[in-house]
């Protein structure tokens, strides 16, 4: 005896595709939401770790130079009272002047590095230097230790040496080699040995110990001054935004590329919230859509349902017949998304390995949300089918 499967009437191709797409949409929305949460958590941990390494931000500030400076009507120096004002800002931990040389100075590479250039020297208190400064000091009769910006060495090796036909020199060799500083000022000339002490990422200048510059300025320049071209600020990383406002208000220029971690966190947070909102809207729309698809389909089939009822099919049987195929589509579809979620998560965790993705956290979070949303949407569809069929019969 042939059997007429109700499935061919209750589960048309059109319905299969529509239901599959709506379930796919909410599952993808959910996947995006969970990935966003996980990525956010990973990035947050990453930034927290970096923040723990250094709670402070360092900025070198200057006064803007305008036409008034050119005509000598204004100067771009900081005075002591301005330093005190900066020091009082809650974001500022400490502030110090950057002292510059008041004499002509050049550096000679000697026999090995055929190199001579005039340069300028600066000094800052040792606590502002991003190196171990225990041996960064000077006494008369000794070589002057020099800290050079990392970018200078890169510029030399990949720019200057190539254009001038000079050999490229690795950092390890430069630090071994004794160089000569040639100082001229107040009618005197001095050649003094120096050595590269290290390379700084924070300070893009040539740094010598404070005591050496003080000594040299007194002998070859004007001596100690109480006004400075630039200041270095050590600030609380958490209050970066307030500090930035303060600096802008006072017309101080600073390195704007040094966006602190606090701002980075705020930007990431905003992007994540945006993505989370989009994925939530996607889920809500998809769940709503699956509800309306079921409703429309049932109304299309209302005559068929009524005929089956007149033939003797019980409402309970009809509800099950219409609900079961949708349930199966939902289960198959959702399982596919679940597997896809873990595969995607695995690859993301491999790509962003430094973010230290928390796989168990992601798994639990995704599973709980997935089960909850699945249950809610399937239950909504079940209620719709039940109510509509009971209304039809």
């Amino acid at each position, binding site marked *: 005896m042939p059997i*007429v499967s109700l499935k061919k009437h209750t589960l048309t191709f059109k319905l299969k595709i529509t239901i599959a797409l709506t379930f796919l949409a909410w599952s993808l929305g959910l996947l995006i939401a969970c990935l966003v949460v996980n990525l956010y958590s990973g990035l947050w941990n990453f930034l927290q770790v970096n923040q723990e390494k250094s709670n402070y931000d360092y900025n070198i500030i200057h006064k803007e130079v305008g036409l008034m400076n050119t005509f000598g009507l204004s100067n771009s120096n900081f005075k002591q009272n301005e330093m005190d004002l900066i020091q009082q800002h809650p974001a500022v931990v400490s502030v110090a002047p950057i002292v510059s040389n008041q004499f002509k100075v050049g550096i000679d590479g000697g026999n090995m590095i055929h190199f001579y250039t005039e340069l300028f020297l600066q000094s800052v208190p040792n606590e502002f230097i991003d190196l171990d400064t225990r041996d960064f000091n000077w006494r008369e009769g000794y070589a002057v230790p020099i800290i050079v910006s990392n970018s200078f060495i890169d510029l030399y090796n990949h720019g200057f040496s190539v254009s001038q036909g000079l050999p490229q020199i690795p950092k390890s060799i430069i630090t071994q080699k004794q160089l000569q500083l040639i100082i001229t000022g107040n009618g005197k000339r001095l050649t003094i040995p120096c050595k590269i002490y290290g390379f700084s990422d924070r300070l893009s200048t040539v740094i010598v110990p404070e005591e050496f510059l003080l000594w040299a300025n007194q002998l070859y320049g004007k001596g100690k001054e109480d006004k400075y071209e630039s200041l270095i600020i050590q600030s609380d990383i958490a209050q970066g935004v307030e500090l930035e406002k303060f600096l802008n208000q006072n017309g101080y220029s600073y390195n704007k590329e040094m966006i602190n971690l606090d701002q980075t966190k705020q930007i990431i947070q905003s992007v994540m919230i945006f993505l989370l909102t989009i994925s939530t809207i996607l889920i809500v729309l998809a769940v709503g859509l699956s509800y309306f698809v079921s409703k429309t389909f049932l109304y299309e089939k209302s005559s068929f349902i009524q*005929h089956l009822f*007149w*033939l*003797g*099919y019980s409402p309970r049987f009809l509800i099950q017949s219409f609900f079961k195929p949708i349930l199966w589509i939902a289960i198959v579809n959702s399982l596919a998304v679940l597997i896809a979620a873990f595969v995607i998560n695995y690859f993301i965790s491999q790509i962003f390995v430094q973010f230290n993705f928390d796989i168990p956290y992601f798994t639990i979070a995704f599973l709980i949300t997935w089960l909850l949303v699945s249950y809610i949407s399937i239950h909504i569809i079940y209620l719709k089918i039940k109510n509509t069929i009971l209304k039809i019969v």
Partner: protein
Amino acid sequence: MQNIVLQYIKPNYLSDIYKSDIYGKELLLEKGKYIHIEAPSGTGKTTLLHIIYGINNLYSGKVLWDNNLAPDYNIIRQFHLSVVFQDLRLIQDVTVQDNIVLKNQLTNHKTIDEIMQMLQFLGVDMHWDKITHQLSRGEQQRVAIVRALCMPFSFLILDEVMSHLDEQNRLKVADLIHQECAKNGAGLVMLNLYKDNYFNYHTFYHL
């Protein structure tokens, strides 16, 4: 199921002064007994069928099934009461086969051969795979009758089932229905516009 008792049933739309052999009175339908109910158009034949079949609740009075006031109508429709509606209620956009099998598979009362024999007897077996709406009204009537016979039943109610059939087909239909009623030991209720003699009725009523 041995009997159905209609106790003073009356559709809500009928006035209290309406005179009838059935509405407002007590009527006993017994298994094995054939009843003819004659009534002109619009006097409530179909309403009576709907009330007994449990798909119209807008009436006063009681319908008792072996003295049971609230039977499971799904069970009644599957095993005890078969009907042929005046408007046939075939599913128009599926095949004749689907229409019949959808009914038969509820109880597996007939084999495919038995169904084909009945269709052949009524001359509609060649339409087995056709979509129902492609059939004429008379052909659809015969399909609806065969479908109604594809279940075990204690009572069979027919609502103007021969209206679009010629005399020869009416006799065949009556013959088939009588055979199936005999096999089931069932009672028959014929609702018709006029008095007919296709069956040996035990009682005649005017609605």
